[in-house]
């Protein structure tokens, strides 16, 4: 997840750098600055903000839910074996 997001961001920035060097018009100037902001804030959210906020407020993941279900089934099996 991390490397693929980073690769995407770097590829966008490389494309942006070429445009930033080649064009001096107002529209391209705005494009370069705004996209730089978009990519950097996107990365900030992906690598810093979202992991933090999801670990604090996020719901239980599918994998976690499956794991706890498996554990419950496992303990139920052991209990039934002990009973028998």
């Amino acid at each position, binding site marked *: 997840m991390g490397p693929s997001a980073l690769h995407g961001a770097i590829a966008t920035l490389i494309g942006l750098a070429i445009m930033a060097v080649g064009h001096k018009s107002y529209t391209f100037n*705005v494009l370069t600055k*705004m996209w730089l902001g978009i990519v950097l804030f996107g990365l900030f*959210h992906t690598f810093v903000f979202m992991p933090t906020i999801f670990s604090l407020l996020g719901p239980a993941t599918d994998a976690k839910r499956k794991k706890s279900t498996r554990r419950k089934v496992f303990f139920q099996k052991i209990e039934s074996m002990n009973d028998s």
Partner: protein
Amino acid sequence: MHQLDAAVQECRACKQNWHMKHSLDSWYAYFSNWVSIGSCSVVTASIVPGQKIVLPEAQFYDCLQEWFLTDFGRNKKNDIVMEDGKISGWREYVTPIKTENLYEDGRTYLTDMRRVLGQYGIEKTYAYSKDLLTMEMFVVLVKETVISCASSIAAIFCIVMLITCSLRISLLVLLCVVQTDYFLCAMLPLFDLTFNNVVAIYLLTSLGLSVLYAMQFSHKFLNVDAPDALDRKE
């Protein structure tokens, strides 16, 4: 037509008179003068010198065709749109006064002009100049940007809900998307940019790109369990 010309020239019920005196350049005024001095062969008999006359439709179009043959009429022909031998539209010019603050005065001017044209002009009469496009931007830009962003955010929420089936995740993704836009708006002065139509487009684009990052992360978060201490050791 007389009423419209007078209303535009005087800028009736405007906050202030936005137009320079006697700056209205209307083909109809020239045409009327030409008729009133008896130059039109069709109505010469009924002319009272110095008095403006309103021609019946048939005579009007005959005189107009005759006027188009004169040098001045030929020059003004481009200001008139004819369909099936009848006038379907025309163009007039008026020079506005210079204003200090285009943002404030421009918006008032545009509103005033729209009121005048709506009240006195025929259907579909509108004012146009390059400056009016800028003023138009000042009138609608913020409102349209807010509406577009709000509808995009609503659409994002629906799609994220469909993909993740989790209200909490959808709200968190929405928070990230809104934050990205908010941060970008806050960065505008630092980027040395002003809020205009080009920036508004990129603000909308940023919604799409930021949801891409946020959605990828949240989807991964739901499907993959984070490694615990034992996994990290391995």
